């Protein structure tokens, strides 16, 4: 019975993230537009964009290899699955034990790996620029994220997201410097990984400043649709992750019924709204930084997270 329920929840979650991702992006864009005094497009605009792209024909470079065409599917699946693994409305997920936080980070890593390869496949300079910068960012972002995992899991004695969420909900932790540091680090990573300002500008049209966009410059049609959808999913995923670790309240925990699950969904929607608003606010309030200062930014994140891990010992002998 339980297993069945868990599987059900799992499927629901996979569908849910897919459905909510464009909404979140739309929401962020809307808020940003309002903040700079424009009316801005509708919240549903991203859905329309995706559908339009799907209907367009695909333009491929002559020497594009099979890898180039396979990558969108691969990376989308990887990120989708990863998003499916983060408990958003309940901790009762069938796949929870198959992959923990580390595996999740690795999934995102593989998505990035293949996308970077795709960027180099055609052999244009922009693809190269994009890939190399993306990998540089990742090289610092990943360890920072792992350090966050490290400090959290030392505290919680596990790396399985479901258990972390449960533990955090139990409120046994209380406020901690290390958690605060970890939170900041994770946010910085999230910004970097989702190609947001100040690391990268999702709306830019100046190739030289592009990172993510440069990498996917050669994509079009359904491939581009998948890539775009994947990045929307990724944004959602990070919000969900932060929520799950640092603000898991309202999530349906073990043994609770369907009602709790529904409530969890609503709460999660709320969380998304808040997070999106905050992100938009943040993005409008600062300017993009030079590419080569990114390493310093993320190095900072890495050090913060490391500090967090060390502070754990100082604050209380764990």
């Amino acid at each position: 019975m339980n297993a069945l329920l868990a599987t059900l929840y799992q499927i629901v979650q996979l569908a849910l993230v897919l459905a909510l991702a464009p909404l979140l992006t739309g929401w962020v864009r809307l808020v940003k537009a309002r903040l700079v005094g424009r009316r801005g497009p509708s919240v549903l605009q991203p859905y329309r964009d995706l559908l339009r792209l799907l209907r367009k024909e695909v333009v491929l470079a002559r020497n594009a290899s099979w890898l180039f065409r396979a990558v969108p599917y691969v990376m989308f699946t990887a990120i989708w699955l990863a998003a499916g693994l983060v408990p958003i409305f309940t901790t009762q997920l069938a796949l929870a034990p198959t992959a923990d936080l580390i595996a999740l980070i690795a999934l995102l890593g593989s998505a990035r790996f293949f996308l970077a390869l795709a960027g180099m496949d055609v052999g244009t300079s922009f693809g190269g620029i994009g890939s190399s910068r993306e990998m540089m960012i990742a090289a610092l972002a990943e360890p920072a994220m792992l350090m966050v995992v490290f400090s959290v899991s030392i505290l919680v004695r596990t790396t399985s997201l479901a258990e972390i969420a449960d533990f955090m909900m139990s409120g046994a932790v209380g406020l901690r410097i290390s958690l605060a540091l970890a939170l900041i680090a994770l946010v910085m990573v999230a910004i970097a990984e989702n190609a947001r300002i100040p690391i990268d500008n999702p709306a830019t049209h100046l190739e030289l400043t592009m990172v993510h966009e440069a990498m996917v410059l050669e994509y079009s049609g359904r491939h581009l649709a998948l890539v775009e959808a994947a990045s929307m999913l990724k944004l959602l995923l990070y919000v969900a992750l932060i929520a799950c670790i640092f603000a898991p309240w309202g999530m349906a925990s073990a043994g609770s019924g369907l009602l709790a699950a529904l409530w969890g969904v609503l709460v999660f929607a709320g969380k998304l709204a808040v997070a999106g608003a905050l992100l938009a606010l943040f993005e409008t309030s600062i300017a993009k930084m030079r590419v080569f200062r990114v390493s310093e930014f993320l190095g900072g994140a890495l050090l913060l997270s490391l500090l967090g891990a060390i502070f754990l010992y100082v604050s209380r002998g764990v």
Partner: protein
Amino acid sequence: MAVTGVAAKRFPQASGIVYGGTAAACALVALWAVLRLGGGGAADTLVLPVGLPWIQAHLRADALSAFFLLVVNFGGVTASLFGWGYERAHRDHHGGPVLPLYPLFLAGMNMVLIADDAFSFLVSWEFMSLASWLLVLSTHREPETPRAARIYLIMASFGTACLLLAFGLLATDHGDYSFDAIRSHAPSATAAALGVILVLMGAGSKAGVVPLHVWLPLAHPAAPSHVSALMSGVMTKVAVYAMIRVLFDLLGEPDWWWGGIMLAFGAVTAVMGVLYALMQDDLKKLLAYSTVENIGAIVIALGLALVFKASHTPVIAALALAAALLHVVNHSLFKSLLFYTAGAVLTATGTRDLNRLGGLIHKMPTTAFLALIGAAAISALPPLNGFVGEWLLFQAILNAPALPEWSLKIGIAVVGALLALAAALAAACFVRLYGTAFLGRPRSFAAEEAREVGWAMRLGMAVPALLCVVLGVLPTPIIRLFEPAVRLMVEAGPFDDRAYQPWFWLAPTSAIGNSYNGLILLAVIALLSILLVVVIHRRASDRVRWSIPWGCGFEGPDPAAVTQYTPSSFGQPIRRAFGSTVFRARDHVDMPEPGDTRPARLSVTWTDPAWVAFFAPIGKVVDWLADRANVLQYMTIRRYLTLMFLALVLLLVMVAVTQQ
């Protein structure tokens, strides 16, 4: 086997005999090893009437040896397969003989693993170095080979000397060098400490631990590719075996700082190694440096195992050791695979320089596909085997709080950060490798004219590639297989046998309730992607138009080729972030004047701090001393007589003094 190898010069088909025979022999040994391990790995011993007369040669194969025998000989099998094709493709190369030495090299490695007394151990150890040295020299007509070989042999012998001293210390001067004797008598604290340091230096120099790694990226690439694969994928593991054997088995109860040292050096090695790799433009050199990085990871795992063993938490130690051994297997698989692909590329294009490759995915589809698996595996992407090893390692690291020493608790946090950094950089490094070698457009005529290689080579690549996937999806069986070895070393296994453990489920006891399941993960991924593909192709338009990509304004049939990113430019951001301080890496941009039609050139220079700090000075000192000493060659007879006279008087004075 070697004899037929000598005969090989006469008859070309002898190469088939040698490689076939070697493959068969290795396969047999590997099979035997599997059976031993399956049967719980009871040790069987053998005493041959050779070696030191009063102790003779003791041979012993316990679970640990059996495990490493498996690794070595499996590598031997694939290498022989690949090598056969490789030799046929390189029939025309005029160099030293490979055939007679190749089996000897493998034999040497096997001997090291089963030796049970210090003498035969060191004989086999140095014999292994000797054989591989000659194999490296088989390409002695290429300009950089001799220096590489020289540095290699000298470093190898330095390592042997360290081990020699260590064993001398542990065996004391009763002349009983058998491992049993060494085990039975516990060394004094200082002796143990000295022994540990010496062993780490000795085995570390062979494994390529920074700063003793300098020979590795020179020697490994110089050899023929299948030999490079053996040296990088397998011989380094023999060094790891030596570390485990001495530190876990012979030295008895460990002290916590032993592991501490290993953690420190392992972390440095991992990060430095991958950074070196990121700056390399030579395909095989890059792979060799990445070996350094992986060795760093293994050493970290061993260090963890040691500290946990020292703090009497054997279960966690077992987890760490399992991580180390699993990574040993994994690395031997994908590093061999990658070296084979490098060999295939070399065969097809005749170059190892990334700046002259590109677009091979169209010309050599099979190789490219297998290389992709290798690159993904070594970048620790799920659901491949590289990730499983890393996962276990991190689970072990997460147990740091269980340790009593504060320095270790915090130190391990830092080590974890460095390890993560290394892993991420490795991914970047292999994106760079794969993207420039196999993707994009050909950067030279040779790359344009490349052809897929023969079946033997492809088979040699395919086998390890397949295993990379299998071990990634089903890691538990292999861990079960080498569990006896782990139990032998730390008196505990990675799995809790009271709880039920399904064979496709990876949930180590001490991994604080975490688990990983590659099989299900793979299944779900497959499911979702199929779903995706179906949906997309049902709903979306699948019209495709082929066109020329935009070349930033350059004209011509293939404009993008002109503006294609080079490996050096790909590495630039990371170089800027890390390299400029550590390696004094400098970019020299030669930008032509406006109106000048010649292309801009970007050249990169960098130095190896280890070389600058340690090895260059040694060379200088030796030169200086040699010059001073050389004066003695050019003196007159009277002066020589004077020397004699002085020596005599000196001794007489000494006697006089002692007599008073």
